[in-house]
């Protein structure tokens, strides 16, 4: 009998706990996260837990987890994945790359696949810094355990040329030493971040109080 017809009890147990696990994420504010550039510890724990469940869970569990993701708090998974790309290099812990990829798999393109791809490029770039890792194999492994539509996007990314996967084509570069390893945005010289914020401010003043 297939799992579709008789889900094992462990699946039910996992699914029944999802609401509680997602709770800290649902109350997360993009406004605060933008300002503090970090996730609250309880949200990191939530995503850690979700990643573990996603990795161990059946397809039903994976789908159920992704169904609970709302575009309103997708950014938490982006932040988690992006931090995974950075921290894996800083700490020499390549296993974090897998967690970052799984966080994106859970987010499952709820927000915008272009934002996911931008972070995929960072994870890929970080993975290439570990000579012991077969980067494409790692990404293909995540393809195998991901659900659509992310699965298709990830596969498409892996199949790109090396140039197409580079962080440069996504407007990113590594930060310059002695600053700690990080990714930063490359902008034309004439356009500083302050200038961008000023421009956005003209249009978003009413909607984005943090830019005031």
């Amino acid at each position, binding site marked *: 009998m297939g799992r579709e017809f008789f889900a094992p009890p462990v699946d039910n147990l996992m699914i029944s706990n999802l609401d509680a696990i997602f709770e800290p994420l649902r109350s997360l504010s993009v406004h605060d996260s*933008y300002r503090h550039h970090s996730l609250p510890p309880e949200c990191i724990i939530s995503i850690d837990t979700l990643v573990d469940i996603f990795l161990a869970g059946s397809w039903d569990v994976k789908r159920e987890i992704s169904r609970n993701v709302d575009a309103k708090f997708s950014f938490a998974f982006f932040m988690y994945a992006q931090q995974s790309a950075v921290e894996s290099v800083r700490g020499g812990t390549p296993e974090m790359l897998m967690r970052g990829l799984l966080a994106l798999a859970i987010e499952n*393109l709820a927000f915008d696949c272009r934002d996911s*791809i931008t972070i995929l490029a960072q994870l890929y770039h970080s993975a290439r810094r570990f000579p012991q890792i077969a980067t494409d194999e790692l990404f293909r492994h995540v393809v195998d355990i991901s659900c659509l539509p992310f699965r298709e996007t990830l596969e498409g990314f892996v199949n790109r040329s090396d140039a197409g996967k580079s962080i440069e084509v996504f407007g990113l570069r590594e930060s310059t030493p002695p600053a700690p390893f990080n990714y930063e945005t490359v*902008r034309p010289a004439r356009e500083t971040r302050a200038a*961008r914020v000023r*421009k956005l401010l003209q249009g978003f003043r009413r909607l*984005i109080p943090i830019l005031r």
Partner: protein
Amino acid sequence: MSGTGCATSGECVIYDALGRAVEIDKGSTKTEIWYTQLGKNVFMNGTTSTNAYWPTPADGSVNLQGNCPSNCNNYYMHKDWLGSARIVSGVNSHADISDLAFAPYGEIYAQFGVKGPADQMFTGDTEDVVAGTMETPNREYNNSAQGRWISPDPAGAGWNTYAYGTNPNSEIDPSGLIPCCGPGGSQAPIPTYIADPCAPSQPIVPPRFHCQGLVGEEGMDSLGALSGQCVGECFYQNQVDCAFNPGSCLNGPSRTVGSPSVTVTVTNSYQGQTIGGISTDGTQWWYATGPIFPITNPDGSVGFTATPWMPSDTALSQGAAQIVTQVGALTAVPYTGLEVAFGAETLLLPGLGEIGAAGDIADYDTYVIGRLPDTATWEGVPFTNVLNTPAWDLNVQAEWEATAVQGGQPITLASPITEQTVLNPGNPDGFSVFGTEVSNFLNLGYTWEGNFLLPQ
């Protein structure tokens, strides 16, 4: 103040804890207003009901005017997508009582018959206290002053605290506190002062409604007598009103800006009135018209058509169609007939590829940006250009944006501009890809107007 004092000084208004007017005292006349979960429900004069509203299907309502059941007149309030009762007709008489045409911010620019203060007019509000101002729980809206409240926003939000919402075609403000995502009119819940009546970040989708046979149903649309059937699909932005006004395109995404300069005027063939016009060079923009479309007339000549933004319902009901005339440097090609108004889409859409010449409508596609789940709904909509490729990267994006900018194309926003959509703290610069898109266009001189970014 005594009733006499109220009469001497004007009138006295008593408000409840939610800020709703519950009694209006004009000395000899005292009007009490009752509310239910559906909003404003009954006007009473002592023990006599003067106006009561019964909800009807499709967000309409019936106004029971007078002391029912023995001595009253019943009127259908025919509401548009914002809840504005544009036509009031007698339930028993089957006659039009009043017919109002509203400008975007509620100004009545054409009127047939006599409107009553209790008619659920612009966005379903009524003129309870002062004629010419619409009553909301928190402040009065002067619809004749084109988007101005008569008092500032109680929260002091925004740089212009007297301004109505920036997109009156899709938003309503039943509370007087915050533009909300209609429809609803009087059916919309009355928010408390701290509640946010708007649902968070709804995508802006291209309406693609079939007319669903509503045209021609009694009481639904006076045009039904002319068309007798539902014509075509509604492809364009805000064309949610197709049952009421087939062929209308409100702020359509195919607004043409750039060269060559073509000026089109749209006139009403029945009365010969100029309803509006548009110039492709951007020097004029009359909000009475939607996009310009080239068409092939039955005689083989080429014409242009634009649909009136808000046609005179009265004139149309009497048999009017539209004449679309090219003026200026181009030879006038008038064409009269209902088929133009309704047939523009069916004539034009299959013929899009046949036009082919430089400067034709295909060169004026609107570019749609937004989060991909939102822009996906625009794919396949005529005259729109959506970037959705698996090979996406910033170079591809930049080339696409450059094409739009070089052509002076307007940009349609498929996603609302909110914190939720433009920020992404997971990106090193803190902005989502959509936020970066918007930022790029603003940097290139575009200005944000409602659901559009428009070139200078």
